[in-house]
């Protein structure tokens, strides 16, 4: 309780004495007369602003400026005793907005008023503008937005209802639209056309222009297309490479789809295998390559752009390239010579054809040996380390031809 009491009494004492001191000065200064000399109330940004007052009392005056940037106290610059000259600093005179001023001396205000600063007539070039997104799809639904913030040379936004012309060019279309600045900005959505290509966009305001902006209009979703193929021959030689290719793929507006889109060529074989090769489009055509099978096969092929477009289905058939090949066993049956394997014109099959040898013992597979052919031949050696002397079943499979030999005795 005691402490509070002391605090309050101290506060009261302080207040009383404080006001008393002030009172004295007030009485003294009320006689001062201030006259506003010649100055206007509206300026444009960047203009030099000098405020001149005339006072009948020669005491120390200060000009207190309040703006959105903060408060500033100015001292008089005049040498004449009764004329008071103040220059508003450039960092304030360059900013658009209102400046309130008070002429004060010893915390006493004598005159107050306000100045209005509008944007400068000098504009900055290029016009501040933003565009995005810069790539859109054709078809008239997708758009890019241009936003313009016209400013003067001091970066003050121009007043509302300033007219901005937003222009864009696409193929042989050149259009312009005038928009009024609203809340400092003007903006426009530029919609794509049906054609793909490039839209150039710009904005102008009172001879001041923006940079050139670019919207790339890409073709939209692909339409279904046709599939075709090319191959050197129809034999399943496991060596030649065939090509699938699409028709020129376009979207529903007739634009050829952009380069690099993935097309997957899906192949279903007669043995229900799912094979696949991939291509990417160039000028709307995608090409996929795949090696011929090594045995008779029927393929059903369809091409897809995943969940977007697909082709017709085509069927193709591969004929057996190798009709038959000889197999020779050595006297102890441990050396198996396969070949020569001859292809459809009786030529030696190109090197690298896989020849697989299976060895069974009582129906269970013991070993599978894969070798590739050289000069049409393959030699297998059944080592005693792995196959003790006994009776085995040997099967050789190559180029879709299977040959099985039961009851082969390895010596």
């Amino acid at each position, binding site marked *: 309780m005691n402490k509070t009491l002391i605090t309050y009494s101290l506060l009261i004492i302080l207040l009383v004495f404080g006001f008393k001191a002030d009172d004295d000065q007030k009485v003294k200064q009320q006689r001062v007369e201030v006259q506003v000399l010649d100055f206007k109330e509206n300026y444009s940004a960047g203009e030099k602003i000098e405020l001149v007052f005339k006072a009948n009392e020669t005491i120390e005056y200060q000009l207190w400026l309040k703006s959105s940037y903060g408060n500033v106290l100015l001292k008089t610059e005049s040498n004449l005793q009764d004329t008071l000259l103040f220059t508003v600093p450039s960092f304030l005179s360059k900013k658009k907005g209102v400046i309130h001023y008070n002429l004060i001396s010893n915390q006493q205000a004598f005159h107050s008023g306000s100045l209005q600063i509008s944007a400068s007539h000098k504009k900055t070039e290029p016009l501040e503008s*933003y*565009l*995005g*997104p*810069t*790539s859109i*799809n054709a078809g008239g639904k*997708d758009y890019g937005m241009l936003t313009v913030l016209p400013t003067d040379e001091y970066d003050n936004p121009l007043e509302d209802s300033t007219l901005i012309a937003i222009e864009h060019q696409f193929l042989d279309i050149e259009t312009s639209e005038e928009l009024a600045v609203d809340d400092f900005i003007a903006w426009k959505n530029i919609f794509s056309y049906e054609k793909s290509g490039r839209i150039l966009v710009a904005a102008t305001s009172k001879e001041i222009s923006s*940079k050139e*902006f*670019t919207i790339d209009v*890409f*073709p939209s*979703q692909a339409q279904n297309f046709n599939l075709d193929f090319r191959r050197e021959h129809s034999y399943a030689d496991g*060596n*030649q*490479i065939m090509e699938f290719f699409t028709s020129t793929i376009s979207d529903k507006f007739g634009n050829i789809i*952009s*380069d*690099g*889109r*993935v097309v*997957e060529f*899906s192949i*279903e074989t007669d*043995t229900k*295998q*799912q*094979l*696949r*090769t*991939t*291509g*990417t*489009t*160039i000028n709307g055509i995608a*090409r*996929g*390559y*795949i*090696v011929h*099978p090594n045995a008779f096969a029927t393929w059903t092929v*369809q091409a*897809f*752009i*995943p*969940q*977007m*477009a*697909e082709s017709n289905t085509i069927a193709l058939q591969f004929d057996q390239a190798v009709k038959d090949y000889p197999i020779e066993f050595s006297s102890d049956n441990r050396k198996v010579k396969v070949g020569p394997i001859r292809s459809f014109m009786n030529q030696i099959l*190109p*090197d*690298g054809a896989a020849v697989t040898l299976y060895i069974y013992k009582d129906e269970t597979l013991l070993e599978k040996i*894969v*070798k*590739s*052919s*050289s000069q049409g031949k393959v030699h297998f050696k059944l*080592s005693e*380390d792995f196959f003790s002397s006994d009776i085995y079943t040997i099967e050789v499979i190559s180029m879709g031809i299977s040959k099985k030999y039961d009851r082969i005795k390895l010596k």
Partner: protein
Amino acid sequence: MEIEKKTTNKYLISALLIGVVFHGSSIFFTLESTYDALIHLFFADHYASSWFEPWSYSWYTGFTVMGYPPLVHQSIGLLSFIGGLKFGLFTTAIVAVILFITGVFKFALLVTGRRDVAGYAAIVAVFSSSFVETLHIFGQLPSIIGISVLMHALPKIYLWIKTGAYVHLIKAFSLLAVTVTSHHVTPIFGMVFFIFPLIGMVIMDTAKEKSGSYKAVRLKTFIGSFLALLWRIVTFGFGSLLLIITCILPYWINTKNNPITQVPIPHGSRDNFLEVTSSGLVFFLIPWGIILFIMPYLFYRFFSKRYLFFGLSLTLLTILGTGGTTPIPKMILGDNAFNILTLDRFTLWASIMALPIFGEFCYRFVEGDIKDTLQHKFGSIYHRILGGALAGVYIFVCVFTMSLGYFRPSQPQKIKMLPILNFLKQDQHDHWRYLPLGFGDQMAWLSSQTNAMTVDGNYHSARRLPELTSRAVERLENSKFRGVEGIGSLQQFLTVPEKYNLKYVFSNDKFYDPILYFSGWQRLRQLENGIMVWEKLNVPPIPNIIPKQDVSLYLKLMWGLIPMITVVFAFVINIQMIWVHALKTRDHKYPEFFNFSIRYQNFKNYLIKLQHAWVVFLLMIITFGIYLFYIKNATQISAQNVVEAYYDALDFKEFKRAYSYIDPNSNKKEDQYMLEIAVTDGLLSSYAKMDEIVVSILDQTDTTARVKTETFWITPLERIDKVFYHELVKRKEKWYLKPSDYDLDIPPDQLFSQNKTQYYNHGRRKISSEQTYHEDVLKQPVLEVLFANLIKNDTTYTVVGEIQNVDNVPADVVIKATLYTSENTKLVTYNAKDQMKHKLMPKENTSFRIDFEGIAWLDKNEQKPETFNPDEFTPISLADLPVTFNLQCAGNVATTDLYKGLAIVEAVIEKNSLRGTLFNSGVQEVTIPQLIISYYSKEKELIWIDQKYIREGIRPQRKRFFDYELKDLSQLEAISSDMENVFINGLPNKDVAYKVTPNRRKDQKDYKLIPVNGKGYNYVKIEVNNYIGAPY
């Protein structure tokens, strides 16, 4: 003072001259490629640029340099203001050489009390193999300076205890303070191993004075003398304790605040030297060097009564220095200290402690009683031969040690840093962290030259990130040498790089390239010094304000000022006194310990015999060792050896050597062999390091054999095991391998052409240091998640899904998943690693799987795997059950790694295995093909993703067979496929889908799904991805 006698000690002067010339000129060729020197240089650079700020942001996302006593670093830093950092380093090294030689001189003087013997000790110290190794191979400057200054302090300590004159105490303290500020371990262990025996010797000397001779000293007199000197000993003890604490107080406070909780890092000095012979060589044979031959003399002298305590200390040091060879060091030190300390320092101290006695031996051998005895017994020729042999072995060991770094470099080739520094400076690249790979200790030199920061570092005690401290990973940079832990740590950093603002990797080792690629990184360019720069998209720059652990101002001031003050103080007190004394012409008394020197006469006969027996024994062991080495390494002496040698040659890419093991009678020509090797590429032949090889002989006759070779290879992606069978043949007493088959396939086209779309991104179109212009910033490609599913697999959680690039440009895809509980509490976040294609062409799809990886072995009790497995996965332990998930997918325009040439030309499912063939239909050579297998439920919902790397590469127009075992997924449980919280480039996935792909053909045929009757699934899908080692 003992140095400035009336005559100059010519031995000491020559030792100093030879030492400075020899070491001073050779450090320019050795020091920079040592293990530690560049680390000290990095610290020095830190002090040179911010002397009073202990926090360094350069390494480990920030660490404090208060973890290492600063004196040596600060000295280099100070000197760097004169002539640059390296000038500082070399100058400090030369000072260390001088300090070491004078230190040994003083120590020997103290121990033997004879200036001529001390002179000999100083000369042998110059070429001491342990010193040469510590300086020229290890580069441990602080350690050398610490022990040298300690040796300078020893005589003062002796004199204080002996005489009680305070001037000696002050001098001792001043030198001890310098020791403390240069190296923290030296004074602590030095107390035990050097000062305690010294105190024992003083007491013994005092007791001798009382009793008249050492022989007469009994336990009672000894205790009596001890009690008489107790007060001085206690004064010194407490004083030095105070010094150790106060001089580096910030160090102790830091140690207390950041205790070393990390998993110990393996160090060669803890190996069993008989098993790991390279460690035995480096940490036992080399440091001991020639002293091994005079062990009997050494212990005989040290176990004489006066040196008894030194003898005990030497014994202990010797035993501790044997590391893991015997279990004794572990028993003495305890598990903890054994795993933290590097035990090589004990051998270093032991060999230094032996130097005075070795000097004494040399003195007696060259001009003392050993010479007389030998000449008397065996004649002077024998003595000369012996002397020559001794000198020869001594020089050989020294030269051998010096050349070790040349013949077996511990560091990669010197890297030119300038291109890297320029790269980091350009275009604000230093606003991200970088990671060097395969730089060795040169990474410290890179760090000291750039302001850019790295997540890695080279002072492992200061590591802070649990990803690093929980594993025995010294540096990420050399993680391939740390097996599963190394690669595991590295993978975490590469998978979630945005967590560390890590954007650039400088790779000096192509071993790491596949893991970088499959984690979603892309090659930027090769710098002119051959370093490949890898970059990761979608990583934010380092924030302007990054956290640091601040310490109080007084600690900073102590740290910055005390070390230099101790040097100045010690300098003024000790060196200045010499000059003051030198100016005065008065004669000085010899210091007290001169009274205890002995006269060398009548060298014991039995000792000569013992010494001879010992040398013969040693020589026998050495011969046996060399024989074993030969048998093990003679490549063609047995079938087993030739196979091992063959794979060793392949492993090190020494194909000419590998060919030399091929049967010369086979028709395989060397050119043909080289060609076959040259065309094989892939994970196994280009990115694998052999880990283990087991050769078992199936069948052998005198001249032929069949072997089965099981090989295990470490690759950055997984551990590979592969079995090869070989036939061998013996010709002219040498075994050879018969050549194996190779790929015979002949593609149909000699020359063919294909068209391909290529992309180029300008980056900044205007050369400007300003922020990239708004119109130069590319739009992020739009992606769309087609499906996502939170899966519970046993106890781990996984998010699987499928994503499509629906934009018109190629995209680099980063997918981040977060799991939430039912209360929407965030549990864990992780990125998709290698179970997806990171680069997608327009409209391309990929499946993805996100595992939530924890930090391995955070729990110390967890059992660590013994063997290596880079594919090791540690699931994170979650506090609660996840119920929902959030996916943040980001696309960025990609222009590289867009090869799509792989085709599936065979895919057969039989039982649980998928067998097939890939065909490379394009024009680039695929180095590592990858299969991504997706599993679908009956309702065609994606439930699991798996992947497999194919070990061999595929050249254009060629095929490669693959085998894949289908998984058992009956345990899987789908928890949520709610796609509400899926975002693409920050926008909701469903909005993107609505706007970009309103006409999605969901009814399209599921052409990729292969029906299968699997355990827990009904369909599988095969996708292929590929890494191209040399794209063009």
